[in-house]
């Protein structure tokens, strides 16, 4: 049993403002759970509290059904990978990996067996006699994983393990960590500030900001139905396009940034309050090229074009906001050119401008995105 339960967990330093507040969460056994948030959101603190490296100010932490608030880190039966890998510079790879097993006085033969398994699994067999300073970043990362693997702890915590690697290696390691987790059946709690990592690796994601849970859910759910503006802008790259919006006085148009008028389709707009200030959001890939289409076409002036090879990013201004459209394929568009863009109301997300809460997610988006196989 390695289910982790957080019941009303809070953390404050010196009885000051809460760094974390009212965290309620259940992480299932064998789940890859990602904590994501900007720096200073409290995600690392939460992880360190689960590890036992930080005291829990309030609430209960249960691992495998037992309350472990009072237990020191070594008795919580978990392993942890640190951002800087925490390798001992004076010990060889082998000694680094076996450090914990020697501390726990595990049987010598068992030590060697686990070392061999871990080294083979992670491709470290030829590096066992080297010191950490003779390894590349990716290899050090593997050694840190190896230390975690040999511990045979069912729960593994990772604190931004990939942030010191270059982009290419990071993509490789994402896959490797994911495979390792599935293969060993680990319960993983993974902290990152990188939403791409969160989206690509997590079975479920928790978005944290200012010490409060913003949303917990599957990556696709977070992408399609962000519960508030923070999640909407944090998840997804490029970030969701947002703008102020209001209904015209006769209620026949939705006016975006006093600029773009969209005809109200009553079927789509029934649940939207008419008398509130709204924010609307639309994903970059839902701003379609409007060259051959007729309805809901708006001409905009291009302020930047990025060619990504298989797709083209087009930035333009809508009132005070800078929006990005993502068109598949290669488009020959110049700076300051005026182009037609199609904004369909069924792709719009509606948020309350004051509370930032989601009122209605895109009607079309959901149907199209998730294709079951």
């Amino acid at each position, binding site marked *: 049993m390695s289910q982790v339960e957080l019941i009303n967990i809070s953390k404050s330093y010196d009885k000051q403002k809460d760094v974390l507040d009212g965290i309620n969460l259940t992480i299932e056994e064998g789940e890859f759970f990602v904590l994501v948030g900007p720096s200073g959101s409290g995600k690392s603190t939460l992880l360190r509290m689960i*590890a*036992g*490296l930080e005291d829990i100010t309030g609430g209960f932490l249960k691992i495998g059904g037992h309350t472990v608030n009072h237990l*020191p*880190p*070594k008795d*919580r039966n*978990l*392993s*942890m990978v*640190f*951002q*800087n890998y*925490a390798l*001992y*510079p*004076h*010990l060889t790879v082998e000694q680094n990996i076996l*450090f*914990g097993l020697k*501390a*726990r006085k595990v049987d010598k033969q068992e030590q060697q067996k686990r070392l061999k398994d871990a080294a083979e699994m992670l491709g470290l067999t030829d590096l066992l006699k080297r010191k950490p*300073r003779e390894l590349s970043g990716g290899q050090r990362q593997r050694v840190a994983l190896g*230390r975690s693997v040999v*511990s045979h702890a069912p729960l593994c915590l990772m604190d931004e393990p990939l942030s010191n690697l270059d982009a290419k290696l990071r993509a490789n390691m994402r896959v490797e960590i994911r495979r390792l987790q599935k293969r060993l059946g680990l319960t993983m709690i993974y902290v990152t500030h990188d939403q791409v990592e969160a989206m690509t690796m997590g079975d479920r994601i928790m978005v944290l900001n200012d010490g409060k849970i913003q949303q917990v859910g599957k990556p696709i759910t977070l992408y399609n139905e962000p519960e508030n503006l923070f999640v909407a802008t944090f998840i997804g790259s490029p970030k969701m396009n947002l703008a102020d919006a209001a209904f015209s006085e006769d209620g026949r148009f939705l006016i975006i940034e006093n600029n773009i008028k969209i005809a109200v389709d009553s079927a789509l707009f029934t649940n939207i309050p008419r008398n509130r200030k709204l924010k609307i959001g639309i994903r970059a890939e839902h701003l379609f090229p409007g060259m051959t289409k007729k309805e809901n076409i708006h001409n905009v002036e291009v302020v930047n074009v990025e060619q990504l090879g298989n797709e083209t990013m087009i930035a333009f201004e809508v009132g005070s906001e800078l929006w990005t459209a993502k068109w598949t394929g290669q488009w020959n568009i110049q700076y300051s050119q005026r182009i037609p863009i199609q904004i369909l109301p069924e792709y719009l997300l509606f948020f309350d401008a004051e509370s930032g809460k989601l009122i209605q997610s895109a009607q079309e988006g959901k149907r199209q995105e998730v294709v079951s196989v």
Partner: protein
Amino acid sequence: MSMTSPIIETNESYLKKVEKVHKQNRIKSLLKGLLFLLPSIILFGVFVFYPLFRTIYLSFFLTDAKGATTVFVGWEHYVNMFTDPIFLKSIKNTFLFVIYTVPVTVIISLFLAVIANEKLKGIGFFRTIFSSTMGVSVAAASVFWLYLFNPTMGLLNEFLQMFELDPIGWLTDPKWALISVAVTTIWMNVGFTFLILLGGLQSIDSSLYESADIEGSSYFYKLRRITIPLLSPTLFFVITVSIINSFQTFGQIDILTQGGPANETNLIVYSIYREAFVNYQFGSASAQAVVLFIIILIMTAIQFKVGERRVHYQ
């Protein structure tokens, strides 16, 4: 063929030009480097290198009371020195003194540094206290210990009397004098050593300890496998400096014992001082100074050789 030769020529002359420019650049950067080194070269030259060579020069001469050379005697001072029982005793005592002071200083300082490295409330107060002896001058510390060692009204003997033990002549008994001076020296050196070791401890990445905690290491396992190895460069530095300091002890001897009783605390630097400024034998004093220099040089060289294998630089 005739077409290619001029090209080769220009190539060669170009390479020569490049070589010349390179050479000029090297000379320029050498001069710049020397310019930056100039202040320390001058200071070292005036206060270290010139006196060093002057001392070696003097050690081959007899001198008058003002220190001017009179008669060239060659190696005579050196030969006499190693047959002089007082000098031999001072060498023996110096080594004993190093053995008494260095290990104890380092062990006490290490212990204090390890406990002062804990994150506790008010730890700053203890850190200040532990390092405070660094701010006490040799003279003040010696006078202070002189009172503690006082045979009749000193605190140490009063303690002994409380337990109905015989009073000890701390500075007058030949058995105790060197130990007493060593105790004073240890007390004085602990502050500096403590501070350096604490600095070394604080530069060890805390995530190493956290990781070890999660992996189930005990306190002493961490101390043995993480703290000591990663502190080894600092320990090495501290030991080297302590040994050199101990070899050069002078102030506390002059104030506490003046080398007595029966030359028991006549350490080599004090012996040099007496030879030069009490007996006005600048020549033989210089010879002793040269011997001290060579001893320290050899000791330090040995330490570096041994240290290379034992010290883990990150």
